[in-house]
């Protein structure tokens, strides 16, 4: 048995047993971050905070929610929204955070693409991040089922239908997923389980992995400069803080993160109290009705771009294109053939590729919401085709890129 001295403080007592001082040093005070960064580097912290908000508000909602097709709608819209003190607040916070978290994820992703933060040892950061994106999507979709409103029901119907895989007509698979011929009690129960247990568990594990993947390659910086972290850390610790190219995670980086988080939260709470319709679709305030299809069915805004890659094509090619869109982002580190780790602005053709992709995805998002008629269908088809062409072209565009 190890030898223990009498501790003189709680910190010392814990340190003897948990090595908290070492942990703090390794995980925070001597976890080195480049100094040459801008506020976009705080998006990870913003995401962590937003995820925390989702978990806490979710726990409160879980205290009153009833996963039963006859009670779910009223448990949300009456019990939680009207009877429970501040239940409305938790629900608005949860719904708005679920939507805004995707805005931040997209900003985080496009930051990574712009600065080339997925190359030269950072591939796993990108891949674990994409796994998080997919898990958040599953989490968002399963959560969207729970209020059992019209959009819950019909989105559930449409999305689970995709698993029949077009002409393969795997209707048995669709029924297996639903646990019924149409969304019903079995469906609601299993999506409830996914939303409050399995997906959060997976997300938390993936967040751990995502942090882990950062440790060895370190965070990228605004110029893609390769930094000798050990050398720079020595400079910092010897007091040459101004010269060192690195800063501590805590408190240096954290102090900047917290300011960005604060600005984000001002924006977030403005949405929660005064501008929430974008995240709480009015149609979902009608109870689910299997005999009444809403005039317009559309997913939440963050799924619209991939929805619009599915929609303009005939059934089977549409599904293939949709599948392509789901996996292609994972392959980014391998499709980008250039060795340069640099901001897109210095990478010639890649800069064009980046901005065209961004605008194309916004066009897809808008077209995905509009009814598929006339000019909107044509624009949607062109934008979806462009999306596919862009990704096929990426290796050719980056192959002969000049070193910067």
């Amino acid at each position, binding site marked *: 048995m190890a030898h223990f001295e009498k501790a003189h403080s709680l910190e010392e007592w814990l340190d003897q047993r948990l090595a908290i001082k070492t942990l703090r040093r390794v995980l925070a005070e001597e976890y080195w971050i480049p100094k040459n960064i801008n506020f976009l580097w705080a998006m990870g912290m913003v995401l962590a905070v937003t995820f925390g908000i989702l978990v806490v508000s979710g726990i409160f909602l879980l205290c009153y929610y009833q996963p039963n097709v006859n009670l779910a709608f009223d448990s949300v*819209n009456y019990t939680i929204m009207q009877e429970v003190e501040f239940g409305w607040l938790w629900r*608005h916070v949860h719904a708005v955070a679920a939507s805004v978290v995707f805005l931040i994820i997209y900003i985080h992703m496009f930051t990574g693409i712009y600065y080339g933060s997925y190359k030269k040892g950072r591939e796993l950061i990108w891949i674990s991040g994409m796994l998080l994106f997919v898990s958040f999507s599953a989490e968002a979709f399963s959560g969207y089922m729970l209020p059992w409103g019209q959009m819950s029901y019909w989105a559930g119907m449409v999305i689970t239908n995709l698993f029949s895989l077009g002409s393969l007509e795997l209707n048995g698979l669709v029924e297996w997923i639903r646990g019924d011929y149409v969304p019903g009690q079995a469906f609601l129960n299993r999506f409830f389980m996914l939303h409050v247990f399995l997906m959060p568990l997976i997300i938390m594990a993936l967040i751990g992995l995502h942090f882990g993947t950062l440790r060895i390659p370190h965070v990228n910086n605004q110029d893609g400069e390769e930094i000798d972290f050990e050398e720079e850390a020595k400079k910092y610790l010897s007091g040459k803080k101004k010269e060192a190219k690195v800063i501590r995670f805590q*408190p240096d980086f954290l102090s900047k993160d917290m300011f960005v988080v604060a600005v984000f939260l001002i924006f977030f709470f403005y949405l929660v109290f005064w501008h929430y319709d974008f995240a709480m679709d009015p149609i979902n305030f009608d109870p689910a009705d299997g005999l009444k299809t809403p005039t317009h069915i559309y997913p939440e805004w963050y799924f619209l771009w991939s929805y619009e890659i599915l929609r303009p094509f005939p059934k089977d090619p549409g599904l293939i294109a949709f599948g392509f869109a789901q996996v292609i982002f994972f392959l980014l580190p391998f499709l980008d053939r250039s060795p340069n780790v640099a901001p897109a602005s210095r990478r010639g053709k890649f800069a064009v590729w980046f901005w065209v992709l961004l605008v194309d995805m916004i066009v897809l998002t808008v077209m995905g919401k509009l009814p598929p008629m006339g000019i909107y269908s044509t624009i949607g088809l062109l934008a979806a085709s462009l999306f596919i062409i862009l990704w096929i072209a990426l290796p050719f565009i980056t192959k002969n890129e000049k070193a910067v």
Partner: protein
Amino acid sequence: MKELKILAVVVFFTLLTYWGVEPYAHSVMHPHIESKGFKYDDLKPLAKKGDAAKGAETFMNAGCIGCHGVKSQGMPAPMDPNAAAASFGVNPPDLSDAGAVYDAKFLADLIANPEHALMVEHKFSKAGRSFPMTAFYGLGGDKDQEIADIVAYLQSIAPKAEKVTPKMAYEAACGRCHAMHYDKWTQIGERPTFKYKIDELKFEEKVLDYQDKLTKYLGKLPPDLSMYIRSRGEHYINTFMEDPQALLPGTAMPRVGVSKESAEKVLEYLTEVGDRKHAERDSVGKIVMIYMFIFAFLAYLWKQSIWKELH
């Protein structure tokens, strides 16, 4: 400076996406219809000045109380809601508050030509069905005068406009077809609390029976309006109440002919029931915002104090 430029780019693309999926997409999906202020310009203004005393007599002679009750004047409805619905499809309204809730022009047109005022010709005379309320053909005198008198009578017995509560306006204008179960309202009245299960079941049976009749009459059970303030929003409900056909052509919902003030009261009631916490949302929101600004200010100071050694 560079950070602000980056922020501007992020904000620009965020707003562009927002504009596309919210205001723009919704303007395409739901064409905007402006309210005409409940003026009912298609209806003739009352040509004559009504006399309430004569109107009382005309009202009795015209046989209105054969179907309508006027509880405030000691005239109960001749049938209970279920029996009335069996005869007419829907329970004819009690007229105690009619003079206050409905527009005078609308009432006059309704008496003379109910299908026209209610805009339900497409469901009745044009579809080969007869409308349950018979038009008033006059008692032999000046018909316009007689109608003006009846309207004046209804206005004279109605409570003053400021005495009409939001709930009264809802019950009169919407409540016989639309339930509001977040406020215990059913189409046949308020759901009482029961001591015995059997009484509850008996009441439930009456509600279901009434709903069946109503479904037969209108083709579809009109929706419960508990959450309509959130699912449709104030603007839609307002314009829909004024002219249902403009927003949902072919709907069985009649034009209800409420006055502008009553429409506001109906909306107030829908908000009270469906969005009960809207005032609290506003006040809590302000406090949270103040807190967040202080938080941001302190976070900024912390950041500055730490980073001045780093640059």
